[in-house]
């Protein structure tokens, strides 16, 4: 469910949608494939905060938390717990 919502953000937000496709797997590295770059991550963080009602702190900013859809799901679940 969370994964689908993240995928929807990536498929509909202008910053990412040109580079995002259905072929991108949940485990694929979004950073490595260039779907999310460092400036795009700023937009993604804002979208995640708004969509999932979470607050992302500087200490949460670790590559492992934003690497792929799977890792973001794990991160958001942990934040909500």
């Amino acid at each position, binding site marked *: 469910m969370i994964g689908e919502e993240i995928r929807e953000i990536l498929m509909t937000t202008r*910053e990412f949608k040109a580079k995002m496709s259905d072929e991108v797997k949940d485990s694929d590295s979004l950073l490595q494939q260039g779907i999310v770059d*460092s400036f795009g991550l*700023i937009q993604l*963080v804002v979208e995640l*905060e708004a969509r999932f009602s979470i607050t992302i*702190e*500087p200490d949460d*900013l*670790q590559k492992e938390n934003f690497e792929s859809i799977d890792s973001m799901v794990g991160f958001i679940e942990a934040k909500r717990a």
Partner: protein
Amino acid sequence: MVFLFHSPAFIICVSLVLVCYWALPHRFRNRLLLAASYGFYCSWDWRFLSLILVSTFVDYNCGLGIHRAKKKSTRKALLLVSLGVNLSLLCFFKYFDFFIEGMVALCGAFGFDPGFTTLNLVLPLGISFYTFQTLSYTIDIYRGKFEPIRSWIDFSLYVAYFPQLIAGPIEKARDLLPQIQAVKEWRRVQLREGIYLFVYGAFKKVVLADSLGRVVNEIFDTPEASGAQVLIGLWAFAIQLYCDFSGYSNMARGVSHLFGIRLSTNFDLPFFSKSYFEFFRRWHITLSGWIAEYVYMPLYFYIPTLSWVRRLGGIRVQLLLGATLSLLATRLIFAIWHGASINFLLLGVFIYVTQLLTVGFRMLLHRVPETGRTPLRWAGNTLRVLLMFHIFCYAMLLFRSHDLQQIAAFTFALFTDLDPLALVVARYWYLYVIMVLLAFYEAVQYRRADQLFICRAGFYTQMVFYLVLIFLYIQIGAIADHRFLYFQF
């Protein structure tokens, strides 16, 4: 004597090594490749083989030590030994003279002579490439991403593997070492792809890059070049550099393919990039990837955690600062990696500033309502590709110019004295032929998302392709100086 990849001597030697390699049992193959690698390096420049041996010894033992150490402080100390030794050697040979010249100039400006003299050091061949390569080994072990290997021969071969020793691709240990250690079997597809990569790479180097070199040299040696001449010179140099380096990379990959080892793609049709971020994922991919993984991303995520950055604002501001500062560090490293000179420093600053401007423009553009019309989107993408290409061409002025005066004069000519009709110059016909042919062939590769599609085509298509290469070789011809531009780094 320098064994260039496309010289008959190199081709004969590699063929002999290749026959012996596949004839030998697996356990002897890496020894043979290692001996061949050291032999080739000595034929290129025997004086600095000792530096390769030092790097190999230090990183092999540091890798084992980091893995065995229980305490974090010991692991960190061993990583610092590896970083210290490798970067000290690189900095000493590459930047010492530049630093001394800078100090003397700075002191001279204040009327003081420090009495320092330069050592006129010769840059050891390939040092910028193998240093980064071996560092990836110890850093990955430190991060727990890779386990050290216990074969001295295999590790030595990883550092000195001759197809990519002197000009890359810069291979990370986790990509290359498992291939070096694997038992390999001969496959016909390796031969087909290896030969294609080698022949097409040689064609790009000998026919395209070297013939464009004539145009470039002529224009950059013209004291008062017109705007049109400068633009032609920049187009020619951008394509020359691309064909030279990507041609070399293709040849390296082709040779390695024949030994059953796949090297990373170093160039992925960079002139189809629509943005800087895309460009750096397509141009000199292994260096850009190395810097992104080991410098950019760690800095990007580290900067927002600094207390003074936290005080500046919310997460958005912190990330923005992380992105801009780490980008600055990355672009400067990328530029200075190429060499110690004011030109390269300026190149780094130029890339950084223009990249920030394009990111800002992109953010603004995202506020404009979208158009769903395909022709408009297509036109927009084409414009972005052309803009990116011309930003790159201008950056090449900083790369190629003799001095700051030439940069200023050429820039002035470009923006004040550009007559579009003067771009049609009959004597540079081969530049336009090369641009059209390259654009057409790469457009097909781009649309198919497959650089090796020719290898999968039928027999007659492949024959036609190779015959066209031979025809162009005869028509456009080769010239005397075949040295690779990237050997100087």
